[in-house]
C-alpha cells in the first residue's frame, strides 16, 4: 500500500509564463499564434494543477517503471536483411530529387 503524504498547504495554481510557452514551443517545434499561446498557457496550467495530484503520493522508495515486464533491450546481429528500398522510401517525400530528399538550404 502506497504511503500518502500528509495534506500539504494548497499549492499555488500553475501559472505558465510567456517565456515558458515560448520555450516549450521551441522544444515541441510548434509555432503558435498569439491566441493559441494564450489557450496553451491556460490548458497547460490547468493540466499541471491536476497532475500535481501525484505529489500527494510518497514515491521516495519507488523505482520508476518504464516497462511493465522485466524486458531488456532486444538485439540482433548486425546483418542487413532488407533489400534496396530507396524508391519506396522516397515515395511519400514532399520533395525528392535524384534519389534524395529535398530539404531547405541549411548552410549559407
Amino acid at each position: 500500500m502506497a504511503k500518502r503524504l500528509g495534506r500539504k498547504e494548497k499549492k499555488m495554481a500553475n501559472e505558465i509564463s510567456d517565456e515558458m510557452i515560448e520555450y516549450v514551443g521551441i522544444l515541441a517545434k510548434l509555432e503558435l499564434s498569439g491566441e493559441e499561446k494564450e489557450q496553451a498557457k491556460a490548458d497547460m496550467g490547468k493540466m499541471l494543477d491536476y497532475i500535481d495530484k501525484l505529489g500527494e503520493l510518497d514515491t521516495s522508495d519507488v523505482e520508476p517503471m518504464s516497462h511493465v515486464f522485466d524486458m531488456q533491450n532486444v538485439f540482433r546481429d548486425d546483418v542487413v536483411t532488407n533489400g534496396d528500398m530507396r524508391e519506396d522510401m522516397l515515395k511519400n517525400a514532399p520533395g525528392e530529387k535524384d534519389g534524395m530528399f529535398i530539404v531547405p538550404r541549411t548552410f549559407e
Partner: protein
Amino acid sequence: MDLLQLTAVELSGKIKAGELTVVEAAEAVLEQIKKKDGIYRCYITVDEATVMKKAGEIQKKIDAGELTGPLAGTPVAVKDNMCTKGMLTTCASKMLGNFVPVYTAEAVLRLEEAGALVIGKTNMDEFAMGSTTETSAYGETKNPWDIRKVPGGSSGGSAAAVAARECFAALGSDTGGSIRQPASFCGVVGIKPTYGTVSRYGLIAYGSSLDQIGPIGKDVTDCAALLEAVASYDKKDSTSLKRQDTDFTSALVDDVKGMKIGIPREYFGDGIEAEVKEAVLNAAQVLEGKGAILEEFDLSLVEYAIPAYYTIAAAEASSNLERFDGIKYGYRTEDYEGLHQMYKKSRSEGFGAEVKRRIMLGSFVLSSGYYDAYYLKALKVKALIKKAFDDAFAKYDVILGPTAPTTAPVLGKSLAEPLKMYLGDIYTVSVNLAGLPGISLPCGKDSGGMPIGLHLIGDCFKEKNILRVAYAYERARGPFGEPEL
C-alpha cells in the same frame, strides 16, 4: 435473415459451407457503406476496386481448401493508424493526408493471412488522441444508436462501423481505452490485450509503452477469433512477447463456477451515472447466479491513474510525433524560410489542436528542470498502480466494473473542456499503465436507449479469464440487439 446481421464467425461458416460467397459478403458491405456511411462517416477510405478483386482471390483459396480458419472470407475494417500498403493511411490528420504506406502493419497482415478481407480504413481521433472521434481532420463519426451522440474514441470509426453493419469486425488500437470505450458507447465488444501480445509494427505510434492493437466485434466469439489471428511474436517489434497461450477461442466456455470476481468500490463512487452503475452491478449479479464468487474490495490509487496516464502518454506522444518534420513523408508547408521554420510551420499547420496540446504538455514534462517532478514521478506512480493490481489479482481472477462512467455524450460538447473529457477515462487508463488485458461488452441501455459497457480486467496474460467470464455473461444476457439504422 439479412447476411449483414451475421457475426463474423457465422458468416465465415456459411461461406465455407458454400451457402454464401466472399463476393456476396463484400458487395453487401459495400452497399451498406454506400447507403449509410454518408450518415455515420465511419470510414476515411474505402478501396472498392481492390476489395472486389481480393474477394475473388479469397474465395478461390477457400474453394481450394487453403483458407479454413474462423475468419476466412470476412469483410473487416482497420483503424486508419495502421499502415496498409498501397492504401491511404491518414491517422485522421492533415499531416498524413497523402500518406500511402509502402508496407503493411503486422497485425493487418496476420488478419489477411487468416483470410479476412480489408474493406477500408476507419475514422478516429487525430493520431488516436481523443475520446470522441471529434478531433479527426476528416469530420466526426456519428453513433449509430443515436446520430446526435459521439461514437466514443479514439477507435470510434471502427466501433461505429461494426454497429452500423458496415463491416463484420474491425481492428482498433487502445492507448488509454480507445478500443473499449467506443465499443461501450456503440454497443459492441472490444478487447485490449496484454501489452506485447499484438505486434505494433506498422501501427503509427502515440504512446509506445501503452499502445496495443485489438479487435472490435459483434460478440465475444468474434473478438476471440480476431485476437487469436492477430496475436503473434514479431521480432520487428522489440516489445513483442513470445506467448504460447494465444489459443483464445479455447476460453469460450460457458462456465464461471468458482471464479473469483473482484468489484472495486472506488469504481462506483462519484461521477458515475446511476443507470450505468445499476446495469453493471446487475451484470455482476448474473455472473453470481452462474456460480461466480463476487467480492467488493478497495483498489487503491484509482484517482491517480489519469494524471499519471496523461503525463506519460503526452511525453511519449511528444517524442513519437517528432518524426513528422515535413521531409520524409506527410505534409510540408508552402512558404518558409530555412529548415527550422519549415519544421515549425509544417507541424503547426499539419497537426490539430488536441495533438498540439499533448505535444506541448509532453515537451514540458520532459524538459530539463521538470522531468523529475512530472515524468519520472508519473513512472513511479505507474509502478504503484501496477502493484495495486498485482495485489488484487492475488485474490481475484477478474476485476469487474463499468467501461466508462457515462453513456455516449452529445456531439460537440467534449472538446471545449479537455480535462473533463480526460476524466471519462478513469476506468480504462490504469489497464494500459499496468499492461493488463481488458474487454468491454454491452450489459444494458440507459433510458435514452444508449448502450452501457461492462468492463472486465484480467491479470497480465490472463485474457482467457476475461474471455470466459465475458462469454458466460453474454450467453446469459442473450442477444443485445442492434441499432435501427
